[in-house]
């Protein structure tokens, strides 16, 4: 079942991110659904699985776009790993505070990407990138996370999925 979930997840994540969220775009900024789902996966699974899912997702996004292959894989792997480590501390996975954590992860990923690109290409408008693009996107993604959690909180979806893999890894 889990394998099937990941197959569907990886098949749909690019088209959903690229097409479905366009109507939600505000001034060109749209929430990062892929990151939100990765965060949930991170909370519910162990570090190894979350890091692998993050890396695979990032690699897919890199291949499907024009970025250096491996860059988003690297940052998403870190996000998956961090979310999984955070998941050990979070008592209530449906808490809206996850929106704040996710926004912080999203912003940290943005800063990480900016620093990488600065390192590789140089001469980037760092302030504009972080304040004009990654910060609004982080806040928007955090908001999406809260809305999704509100939507699924009553349906026990998260607790139903919760953590065989994590217990195994621990």
């Amino acid at each position, binding site marked *: 079942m889990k394998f099937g979930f990941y197959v569907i997840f990886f098949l749909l994540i690019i088209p959903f991110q690229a097409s479905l969220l366009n109507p939600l775009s505000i001034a060109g900024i749209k929430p990062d659904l892929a990151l939100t789902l990765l965060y949930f996966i991170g909370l519910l699974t162990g570090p190894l699985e979350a890091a692998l899912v993050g890396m695979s997702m990032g690699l*897919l996004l*890199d291949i499907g776009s024009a970025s250096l292959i491996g860059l988003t894989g690297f940052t998403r792997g870190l996000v998956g790993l961090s979310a999984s480590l955070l998941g050990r501390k979070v008592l209530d996975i449906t808490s809206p505070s996850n929106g704040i954590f996710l926004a912080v992860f999203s912003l940290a990923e943005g800063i990480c990407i900016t620093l990488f690109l600065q390192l590789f290409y140089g001469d980037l408008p760092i302030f504009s990138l972080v304040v004009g693009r990654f910060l609004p996107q982080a806040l928007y993604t955090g908001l999406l996370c809260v809305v999704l959690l509100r939507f699924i909180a009553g349906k026990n979806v998260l607790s139903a999925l919760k953590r065989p893999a994590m217990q195994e890894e621990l």
Partner: protein
Amino acid sequence: MPGLIAKHKKGFFILFLFILLFWLVTVQVKNGRFSFMEKPVLAVAGFFERIVTGTVNSVASIGNRYVFLMRTVRENERLKEEVDRLRLENAVMNELLTENERLRDTLNFRRLNPLSSVVAQVIGKEMSPTSSTITINKGSSNGIEKDMAVITPSGVVGRVQTVLPALSKVLLLTDPGSTLAVRVQRNREEGLLEGKLVNCALKYVSYYADMQQGDLLVTSGLDGIYPKGLPVATIVRVTKREASAFQTVVAEPVVRFARLEEVLVYKK
């Protein structure tokens, strides 16, 4: 040491993967981006993007058709397409006029051939946070080839990066991998425009070159991709430092990528 590795096997495995990814990135910075698996991934993603975009558009159009008469909508679409084409022609003609004014003493008026272009719909935008791309619903079966210029009536959008039979991926001007030969329309100073994700920067502009805020950059045609004279970007900031032989020129693309719905692919 072997005991330590055995104890933290998973941790070392994750660390190894991170190092591998970092190495992969640095190799591409040196040797250029890999196009490994690009077409299969784009094909699968494009298939679903078509479904998703089609569904979203269908739902939207049902609403529209209840509000407006069907014939009016069709007529509107046709006229919009025609207006777009005319605006493009107008933009090219304006540039031609400027050029003609400059060369009026020679009496050799140049005539541009009407641009041959394909209208394509944008079906996907910016999948990765590290790049700027869009996906369009036309591909090699419509005569589109790699490195064809993608434009709108307002100006340049980017160039075709990957082509499949029924869709293509377009690298936007703002992508860090994008470079484009431009010149300042006012004084014909030339430069190379590079993408910087949120905006663009004009590279290697001499300290003494006359660059001013508000100057319009147009394609120079020197790169062999874009037709000459199309609007590209507007200079928003010029910074000069005594210590540097070059000035820093930041430019904003004239096309608002967030609002892109249809584009024209210029066929060479």
